[in-house]
């Protein structure tokens, strides 16, 4: 790639995508901060006196608690009020994004489908340095499609488990679908760490592999190494 003339920028992200992306980032930070505050009130899983044998490094038996900077709300009531207030714009932002995907047809370049399995393996080989050249790709490579598809599913899981433990009697069928109240609360908590892990990898890959994509998600224009072929 060296020696090539700088490419003319291509339009990459629609305003709706850019706004919902950054809104989600801020709202998710608030949801996690207030969620950690709420969790601190009872840092276990299972019934009172019957703690479940679930993997939880953050059980207060072995963990002193989340640092103050990571929490939002100050105390349980504050955490609840933040959490239940931010939940509205968080869900709404997600729905606007999905509606835009559906209407614009852009879901085609983002949805991971069975035919993306083979290219995903090739992409993984490239990242593991078992393949030398970067596999050809469209707007996003197959691993990106897998990531951006699963993050939407994760958002759905977080929202559904959240509603279920917010109204466990009225939404009893949803609680049952997730295996009961105590397990549903666990899945909701687990989604936090999947979001955190996704964000860390997402930001690292942007900075290490394609820093120009950061400009694209702000201005909409992309001038990097992977112009769209879609």
């Amino acid at each position, binding site marked *: 790639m*060296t020696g090539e003339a*700088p490419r003319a920028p291509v339009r990459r992200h629609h305003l709706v995508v850019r706004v919902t992306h*950054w809104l989600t*980032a*801020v709202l998710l*930070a*608030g949801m*996690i*901060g207030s969620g950690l*505050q*709420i*969790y601190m*009130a*009872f840092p*276990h899983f299972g*019934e*009172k*006196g*019957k703690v479940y044998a679930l993997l939880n490094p953050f059980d207060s038996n072995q963990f002193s608690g989340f640092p*103050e*900077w*990571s*929490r*939002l*709300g*100050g*105390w*349980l*009531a*504050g955490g*609840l*009020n*933040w959490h*239940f*207030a931010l939940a*509205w714009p968080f869900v709404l932002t997600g729905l606007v994004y999905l509606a835009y995907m559906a209407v614009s047809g852009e879901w085609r370049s983002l949805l991971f489908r069975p035919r993306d399995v083979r290219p995903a393996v090739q992409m993984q080989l490239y990242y593991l340095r078992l393949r030398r050249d970067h596999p050809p790709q469209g707007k996003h490579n197959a691993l990106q499609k897998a990531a951006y598809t699963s993050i939407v599913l994760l958002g759905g899981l977080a929202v559904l488990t959240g509603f279920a433990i*917010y*109204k*466990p*009697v*009225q*939404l*009893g069928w949803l609680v049952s679908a997730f295996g009961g*109240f*105590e397990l549903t*609360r666990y899945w909701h908590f687990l989604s936090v760490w999947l979001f955190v892990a996704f964000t860390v990898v997402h930001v690292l890959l942007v*900075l290490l592999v394609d*820093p*120009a994509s*950061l*400009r694209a998600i*702000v201005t909409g224009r992309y*001038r990097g190494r992977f112009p769209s072929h879609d």
Partner: protein
Amino acid sequence: MTDRLSLPRRDFLRLGVLAGPASLVAACGWDGGSLLRPRLSAISRINDWVGEHIVLSSDRLAPTYPSTARSGVMPPYFISRTLPRLERPEEWTLHVGGMVRKPTRFTAVALGALPAVTYTVKHHCVEGWTAVASWTGVPLATVAALVEPASGARYLRFDSFDSGYSNGWDLKSAMHPQTILAYAFNDRPLMPDHGAPLRLYSPIKLGYKLTKYLTAVTFTDERPGGYWEDRGYPWLGGI
């Protein structure tokens, strides 16, 4: 290669501009301060409205369990410095009044003579823990029918002798068939650690809404506050 060096720097700056406000919001266990706290309360009112008028069903029952499913632990809870006890239990009465046609003082004997229900249900604490236990008592709807609430009564206020602990309820939740005035816990008479002689119980609300050590039930058209509700906890507490 040259523009690959200069671009990231600008991008880092942009990231900083965007991440700044996000980290400010997330920082320091902030409760919103005097500026945002009232707005959070206003949104909580909206959530209460949605919870009462859209989510809550007046006849959907919370699941019941066999008595063998009871949890070993049901922690006592009161706000007084010491366990609230009646000096003369035999003189205790429950006053049911306010916007009703027949305000009545019920003795423990009178309440015990009314048709009772017993159920084993899951208790949900606002902190996130649960516990299964059995409760026996009179459906609040049965008592309401005796005092005949006025048509304008929209809320109920529950008072206690636990240092002024009280709660406000919506009529719909109060008239739910599983909302009871409970005088027995796990097949035994209610003891002072769980709110003797009488406490409010319902599996459709969080524990802090279930007033113990009851002294009065008042029907009203104005939304009553409550001990924790006045301190910022969600008013409805409906689950």
